[in-house]
């Protein structure tokens, strides 16, 4: 998998929101994403992880041109997009599909699910939009024919999620960008959606960019992980490496914050205090220093650079954690009975 050229490569992609106000009195533009680089290879599952305000959703949309990047470069199969106009994104959009966090809202409320599933084919003019074929498509995601005539709001969370996946699959995309694919789903259903992703990858060598905050899910599905904090990459690397031995204190804090379903492993204190600062008031130096338990004077003044490490890992920290300490998966440490 490693040797293959990237399917898509974002190189120092930034998104700014122009400041509001009168000319000359206008505030400085807000930087939502700051030079985020990320590659996805064919058949790879990359997880983009961050809390609210980390810019993870914006990144997914910027990659498909739904939000206009302010600088940076996007390469598809090694060929850079000439600019960020809608026309340039056309070829990419035909090869990629976007799954929204709220699947119901991503369907036209006045159209039936079946029509919406056929939509990508109708737009591209490729593939059959005959009912029998749409039924087959729905079958791939485990939805029976009777759902096709329903309106979006008449579906449950899990069904709507499947319908959205079916719509994405209808033109066999090479890349699926999924924003919080398990949000709002019961654990009993969650696994089904993730299994579906794994099946799709197996059958079509589809690559995935999963945008999520749910680390317990990431653990099972990710090949590589990229951690965002305030629109900047703070750590990235192979999923096993990052989850077993996080180098950045923020990654550590995220892992420790995830409540463990074991009453004997309660935490005496919350692993990290305070909340994510506003991007309008980014802290100076390392942006995590306001919440970092290991912050030193240097962290308050000097911003760390994202440094490459062995094994394709990157960390942006002046005082990274030792990489060797391993955290056992909670599943192993559970139940003695």
């Amino acid at each position: 998998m490693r040797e293959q050229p990237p399917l898509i490569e974002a190189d120092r992609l930034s998104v700014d929101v122009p400041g509001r106000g009168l000319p000359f009195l206008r505030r400085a533009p807000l930087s939502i994403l700051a030079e985020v680089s990320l590659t996805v290879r064919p058949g790879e599952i990359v997880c983009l992880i961050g809390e609210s305000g980390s810019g993870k959703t914006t990144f997914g949309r910027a990659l498909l041109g739904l939000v206009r990047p302010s600088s940076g470069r996007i390469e598809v199969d090694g060929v850079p997009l000439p600019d960020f106009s809608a026309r340039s994104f056309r070829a990419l959009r035909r090869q990629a599909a976007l799954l929204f966090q709220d699947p119901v809202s991503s369907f036209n409320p006045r159209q039936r699910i079946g029509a919406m599933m056929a939509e990508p084919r109708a737009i591209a003019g490729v593939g059959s939009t005959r009912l029998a074929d749409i039924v087959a498509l729905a079958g791939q995601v485990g939805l029976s024919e009777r759902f096709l005539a329903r309106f979006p709001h008449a579906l449950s969370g899990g069904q709507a999620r499947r319908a959205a996946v079916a719509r994405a699959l209808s033109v066999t995309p090479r890349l699926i960008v999924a924003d919080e694919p398990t949000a709002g789903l019961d654990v009993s259903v969650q696994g089904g959606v993730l299994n579906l992703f794994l099946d799709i990858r197996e059958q079509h060598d589809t690559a995935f960019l999963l945008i999520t905050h749910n680390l317990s899910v990431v653990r099972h599905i990710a090949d590589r992980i990229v951690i965002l904090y305030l629109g900047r990459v703070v750590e990235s690397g192979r999923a096993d490496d990052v989850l077993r031995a996080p180098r950045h204190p923020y990654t550590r804090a995220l892992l420790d914050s995830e409540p463990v379903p074991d009453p004997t492993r309660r935490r005496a204190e919350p692993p990290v205090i305070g909340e994510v600062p506003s991007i309008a008031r980014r802290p100076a130096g390392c942006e995590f220093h306001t919440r970092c338990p290991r912050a030193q004077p240097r962290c308050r003044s000097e911003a760390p650079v994202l440094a490459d490490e062995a094994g394709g890992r990157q960390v942006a920290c002046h005082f990274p954690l030792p990489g060797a300490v391993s955290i056992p998966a909670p599943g192993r440490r559970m139940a003695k009975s």
Partner: protein
Amino acid sequence: MKPPSLEPPSAEPPLPAPVLDMRHVSVSYGAHVPAVLGVDLTIRPREIVGIIGESGSGKSTLAHSVLGLLPKTARMSGTRFNLAGTDILKADRTALAALRGPAAAMIFQNPMTAFSPIHTLGRQLTDLLWRDRDPSGAQKRARIVAALAEVGIPDPVGRLDAFPFQLSGGMLQRVAIAAALLMQPALLIADEPTTALDVTMEAQILHLMRSLRERAGVSILIISHHLGVIAEICDRVAVMYAGRIVEEGTVEAIFRAPRHPYTQALFACEPALVPTGMRRLPVIAGEVPRPGASLCDFASRCAVKAARCVEQAPPWTRSGEFPGHHVRCHGSALSGSPPSGRTP
């Protein structure tokens, strides 16, 4: 100030009078849509009780029924439903309204919509203290500031003039908890209190709720579909499925030795408990049926279903070595089988 305890509080007699006492309580929407079926639930002072269940299990309906927040079409029945000494089944609307605050307060899933967007937080918190006619404005203000400080809000005085949209979700949830505490309720009901929050904030809010029990002596009923959240703060856990409580016990009993096939399947699906490297996550096939459709509502999805499961209603049996551990299942008392889920 005792540390978070795993000991079942109900272990030694004499027991203090329960804050919430429900016996065979049922709730239905209209005449034919049952949502909660014959629920028995007791919450004692300073106890944190959790309800786990999928969507459609009736756990939110149960929580809302305690505060009389159900829609007008809802009908409640039961043999006993006492909240802080008041019989809810007999209470009229005024009596129910009088219970909100002194007897029980609620924290909602989405703190962003739990506040009025056009009034300052200070104004909204002051309004909550309308029952206290005697204290002056300055005294009320001091109480509010103290409550905000207690839930860890930086610059509580400054926040009084803030509007809800100026605070993050996590901060607003803290304010919601402060608001609940101002009314000094006997019972705090939290309906998915951390679902809308980031993980780092979730850990802080759970910690806050746990420390409040120690400091304010409040009982908490927390509803969540997240097993980690339940494990983190509960003393006792009830597992709800299709309107019924199918298993109940101390948090240790439920997490160490789940007996009901549904509880076991739920644990088997929890991604944090599934060993990594499986690359295939277990699911519970099928959907939650309409409550009361069959004798055992889980039979249609159950992996260990037997003939008697469709012939007789499953009994509510004591189970295992943990005190107070009960299961509503035919096979449970016999098979202490380890959690097992199905992988498609």
